[in-house]
């Protein structure tokens, strides 16, 4: 086991509500005591619905947000203690791909400049060598070399996302954090980008953190899955375990809600329709955060906060798998 990222009991909080600028009246725990390891070369998908904290977790990994508790290690070093050349090296080695390929590319820069910008900022190579690097990067993501001389508006959504990926690859990073990289694309185009990322990971030995809400897409690319609900990781494990035999009742509901493009399969399956709405993350429920909507809720769930414990081949934070509690109940 050789983790590239070690996330140990990390929380990230924001000040919200009245007086946010003056220090904040209320705290929102966007990520609540997350613990996970990201192994070198794996593709970890972080999934969950709006407001679950998956994007905050991703941005914390690349150093955009600072943990308010816990410790984040990259390659054995505490990220918050990195300074000078070590910090610059971290920034080169961890890159990001964004969701919206229209907003994440500067419309006034040519594609060649966009892709070369990370090299320029980090003073890698000469103008000439950067030009050659751009041609190589564009080829890698399946764009013609003459794309370098055009502006982003000349490209479709799928092609723009390729440009964003080429830019993320420019500094030959170890890790790419991709935040909903295919959500804005039409389905016939999504597969192109998923297959590209999958291929690049294999060719370059990249570690990929794939943040997404679309579980069906995730299944095709991830080696492991972390499921988040209201800021917490509620289940984590190998893709085949989590999808094959989901343990947390939230994961079960989430998977059963995804439509299957087959009318026969749709008629046969049991769907778990969750009760009510997502509770406010500012004032989350006591005990298990999912207990207000859980069909298996029993007494301890109201008061005792579950921790990730082994359940099947994976970990789930659910009292159903805690034998001591089961016997006491």
């Amino acid at each position, binding site marked *: 086991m050789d983790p590239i990222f070690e996330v140990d009991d990390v929380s990230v909080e924001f000040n919200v509500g009245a007086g946010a600028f003056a220090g904040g009246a209320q705290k929102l725990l966007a990520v609540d005591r997350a613990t996970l390891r990201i192994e070198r070369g794996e593709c970890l998908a972080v999934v969950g619905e709006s407001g679950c904290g998956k994007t905050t977790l991703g941005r914390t990994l690349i150093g955009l947000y600072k943990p308010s508790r816990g410790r984040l290690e990259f390659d054995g070093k505490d990220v918050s203690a990195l300074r000078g050349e070590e910090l610059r090296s971290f920034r080169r080695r961890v890159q990001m791909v964004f969701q919206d390929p229209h907003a994440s590319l500067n419309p006034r820069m040519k594609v060649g400049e966009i892709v070369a910008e990370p090299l320029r900022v980090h003073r890698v190579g000469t103008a000439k060598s950067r030009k050659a690097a751009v041609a190589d990067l564009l080829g890698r993501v399946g764009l013609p070399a003459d794309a370098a001389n055009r502006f982003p508006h000349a490209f479709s959504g799928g092609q723009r996302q390729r440009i964003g990926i080429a830019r993320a690859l420019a500094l030959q990073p170890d890790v790419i954090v991709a935040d909903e990289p295919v959500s804005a694309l*039409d389905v*016939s185009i*999504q597969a192109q980008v998923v297959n590209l990322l999958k291929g690049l990971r294999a060719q370059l030995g990249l570690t990929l953190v794939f943040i997404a809400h679309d579980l*069906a897409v995730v299944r095709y690319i991830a080696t492991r899955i972390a499921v988040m609900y209201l800021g917490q990781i509620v289940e984590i494990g190998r893709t085949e375990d989590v999808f094959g035999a989901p343990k947390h009742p939230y994961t079960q509901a989430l*998977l059963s*809600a995804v*439509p*299957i*493009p087959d009318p026969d399969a749709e008629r046969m399956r049991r*769907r778990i329709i969750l009760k009510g709405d997502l509770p406010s993350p500012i004032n989350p429920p006591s005990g298990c955060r999912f207990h207000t909507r859980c069909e298996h809720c029993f007494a301890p769930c109201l008061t005792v906060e579950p921790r990730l414990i082994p359940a099947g081949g994976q970990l789930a934070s659910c009292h159903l798998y805690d034998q001591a509690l089961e016997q006491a109940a």
Partner: protein
Amino acid sequence: MSDAGLDVRGLQTVLSTGGGPVPVISDISFTLRPGETLCLVGESGSGKSMTALSIVRLLPAAARVNAGEILLGDIDLARLPDSGMRSVRGRRVAMVFQDSMTSLNPLLTIGRQLTEGMELHLGLSPAVARERAVALLAQVGVPAARERVEQYPHQLSGGLRQRAAIAIALSAEPEILIADEPTTALDVTTQAQILELLAREQQRRGMGLLLITHDVGVVARMATTVGVMYAGRIVEKAPSDMLFRDPRHPYTRGLLKSVPRMDTDLTAPLTSIPGTPPAIANLPEGCSFNPRCPSRFDRCLTERPPLIERKAGHPVACHLEDA
């Protein structure tokens, strides 16, 4: 309630541009019977929303219906004056949009937006309409309905807002409900709730439901009949089971194969359709799909294939069907 449903024939809508009028949808024909769910499925720019907006006459200013009939019983909505349309829209044909944050009026309470239609279309007194509004909200699964009618749209979550929007659409007891991507802005567990609600109300009321979506999975869950749209035209139409079991058009096949699924083994790679959909103002000659089609031959480059019903109930617009 009339049992005629909605019958659209040869509908064409054009958009005025600097370079003259450009058809955004052409030759759209379908029948939606009471109690039936017709799904129009396609990707961005395929014309599915334009079809919906043409029916209820809520098109952007630069667009207008240029040809065709929109028959609701024995009335042709395409030829109805605006005044007549106002008594149909919201009354006999109602609509639910994708984004309930912008489709609801932020300045009016949920209750007022519910009673407005009932007072106008059904002639109910404000007091009666108000009681019905509370009952209707409860029926679509809004908890504490009596308190919620006093609230404004921004005070509701996305899922509850979409429920309220559905209640408003149902308030005048329409024969036809048009829902344009009603769950696209919602999370998947909320989507499951809203789809269940739409299916239940449609069954209970015997409405015709025209459901517009880009999500083939939603189609599989909801549709009686499916129309697949590409570049402004219906390229294939069939009962849902038939379409999924035996897709004929290369675009439909590509679309079904490119959808990631939760229930297949992962040895088969996710396939994609090469290239991108064409711009509607600059369609290729012949079949609009030909630049992306794996099976194209010379005829496809010059001659646009008409939608022909070679097999009963399953028209397809593709030259391969003649081979």
